[in-house]
């Protein structure tokens, strides 16, 4: 029987996983096109060395600053097609923000008698805090524990209670449910400003992002637990249905999608959005309910266990 100790650690061209087998750790390192497996028996593990790295350094500050600078310049630059060029630095900036939001980094090195391996599955201190106590418990359950004098071995009770891993909530879930609440607030602002038609483009973009985030949140069911996963899956379905309504009403208003994209000079005042008020209110309502419900679930469950 195997148990995933941590959610998969993703990288652009690789991923890594750490599993617990019956009496061993199973470390998987994949370059997408090939997987490498290594098994380390618990009775062979000699040491675990965790080194913490600060979240900020010169390169990361430069990465964030330069991408932010170019995004801002291209967004505030002369009007026209320049704004489109803000997308690449904007994505790099977003990547930098998400990278830094994961907190301090670390390196976890495992020593056995014949090998020393860096476990790429543990790259942040949050991950280390979640998995290191469990690794220590498993190994000490097999080998015993060293006394403070560093020489005496204390036997561990056979049926040692599992140490509750440190509670941590994936950032993805907070971003996901936060985006739902933000979407509801944006829709409310457009509603009360009386410019509901202006918010539909933004709303469609956010719906697409919510759909993608919802799929990712649903796939992280191991971390999120059943209730949050059901809510995430429900949001995906609602986003799909809502997107369908949006596309249908847009097509209806423009007289068909293909007509719309081939027609030039459609005047906004000639566009009659179907059920614009009902759409906005309904969309804001389900976003607010789902977002707040998700956040309440995240906060009341005091995090999730890997």
């Amino acid at each position, binding site marked *: 029987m195997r148990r995933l100790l941590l959610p998969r650690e993703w990288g652009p061209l690789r991923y890594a996983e750490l599993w617990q087998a019956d009496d061993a750790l199973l470390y998987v390192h994949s370059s997408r096109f090939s997987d490498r497996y*290594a098994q380390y028996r618990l009775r062979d593990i000699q040491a675990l060395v965790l080194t913490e790295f600060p979240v900020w350094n010169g390169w990361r500050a430069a990465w964030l600053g330069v991408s932010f600078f170019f995004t801002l310049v291209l967004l505030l630059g002369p009007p026209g097609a320049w704004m489109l060029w803000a997308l690449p630095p904007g994505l790099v900036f977003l990547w930098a923000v998400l990278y830094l939001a994961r907190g301090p980094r670390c*390196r976890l090195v495992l020593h056995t008698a014949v090998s020393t391996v860096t476990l790429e599955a543990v790259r942040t201190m949050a991950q280390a805090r979640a998995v290191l106590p469990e690794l220590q418990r498993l190994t000490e359950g097999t080998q015993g524990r060293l006394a403070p004098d*560093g020489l005496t071995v204390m036997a561990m009770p056979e049926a040692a209670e599992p140490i509750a891993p440190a509670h941590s909530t994936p950032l993805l879930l907070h971003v996901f449910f936060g985006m739902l609440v933000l979407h509801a607030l944006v829709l409310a602002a457009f509603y009360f400003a009386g410019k509901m038609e202006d918010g539909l483009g933004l709303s469609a973009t956010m719906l697409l992002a919510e759909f993608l985030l919802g799929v990712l949140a649903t796939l992280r069911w191991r971390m999120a637990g059943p209730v949050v996963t059901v809510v995430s899956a429900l949001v995906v379905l609602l986003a799909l249905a809502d997107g369908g309504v949006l596309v249908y009403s847009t097509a209806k208003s423009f007289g068909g999608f293909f007509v719309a994209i081939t027609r030039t000079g459609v005047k906004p005042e000639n566009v009659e959005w179907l059920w614009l008020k009902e759409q906005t209110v309904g969309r804001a309502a389900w976003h607010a309910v789902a977002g707040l419900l998700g956040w309440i679930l995240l906060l009341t469950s005091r995090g999730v266990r890997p």
Partner: protein
Amino acid sequence: MGYVVCGACSMRIPPANWNQAFPVPCPVCARDVAVTVFPVALQPPKPVFPERVVTGQEASCYNHATNRAVAACDACGRFLCALCDIDAAGGHVCPACFERREAPALHERVNYDSIALALVTLPMLLCWLPIVTTPAGLFFAFKFWSAPSPVFPRGRWRLWLTVIIAVVQITLVGWFLVYLSQGRGGLPRE
């Protein structure tokens, strides 16, 4: 176990810093390092006494002709005695293969389904490359359709997706060729 090193500067961490309740700064780079040493690290290595070959029918070690073989190297297949058998990452390795690999990971598997999917998707960025890579991707998909799954089972969705995309691409190319052959988009007919 002789020593452990800092993960940042690779300098030795003194034993006084081992198994502390809180991370201790590295004496050299000052980064916080938490070292957990387990009892097996302090145990002296167990002596190994290889058995001798008694009869001529027994397999002997590649390195020691008088020692009875107890395992075969997972990398090169040579017979190994208890003296030469290195237990690395859950497998048996001979000293020569062990020296060639800094971190032995003996179980390696090629993900042909990912390769097939990449062959039919990534080259779409270039218009002419899929002419070669799409059939290659389809070939990979069918050739390794029933390949045994690795340690962790992988679904076949990549293979299905590969076949669907490849069929769509081939259909589009075929349609385009027919379109050209009818003279609608190609060279003018006489």
